[in-house]
């Protein structure tokens, strides 16, 4: 009996951890960011919060609003 409840507890804990990781990844994907790709193959990622990113994100928002009318 005690063994079964231990297994149940472990399964519930593992499920919760997996769910938290999945939600975290999803939230990270949804976070506002700008990715810049250059001619030499280099990539620059700017996350929301930095001044450079905010400047580009503001212009991107303006563009998206204009496209959707």
């Amino acid at each position, binding site marked *: 009996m005690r063994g079964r409840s231990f297994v149940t507890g472990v399964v519930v804990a593992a499920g919760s951890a997996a769910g938290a990781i999945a939600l975290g990844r999803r939230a990270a*994907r*949804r*976070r*506002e*960011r*700008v*990715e*810049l*790709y*250059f*001619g*030499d193959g*280099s990539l*620059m990622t*700017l996350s929301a919060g930095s001044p*450079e990113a905010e*400047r*580009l*994100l503001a*212009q*991107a*928002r*303006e*563009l*998206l609003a*204009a*496209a*959707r*009318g």
Partner: protein
Amino acid sequence: MAQTSEALRELTEISTQIEAAVVLDREGAVVASTLDDDRAGRLAGPTLQLLRAAEETGPDSESLVQLEAALRDGVVFLVADADRVIAATTGPEPTAGLVFYDLKSCLRALGAEEKPKPAAKPRARRAPAKKAPAPRTRKKQDDAGA
């Protein structure tokens, strides 16, 4: 008037994730668009500003070729080549790789549309095959004598 070129029509048919797209030359003139003229014109300014701001952000010597700006309610993509830039918008969480691929293909196709096709060279005619000489037959001595 901004025409919806064949390349853009194909783009919106193939890529269902793309909501709107506009192609500009490097001076900001609208070359083609999936939107009406008014909206395409309104898109030109912010597109050029975004491109220039992104180019200022990057390393000095390198030109920007692609940009993805992920916002809460949608994503803005830019792809640039030496002559043109294409901007496209999608809903949130698109398949970025596919969108970039489709936009690059569209820019290439637009370039091909603008270049006049070279006149087809007349095919060199083959010389007619030589007829094999008819096998010589020796006249029979008898025939010659007759």
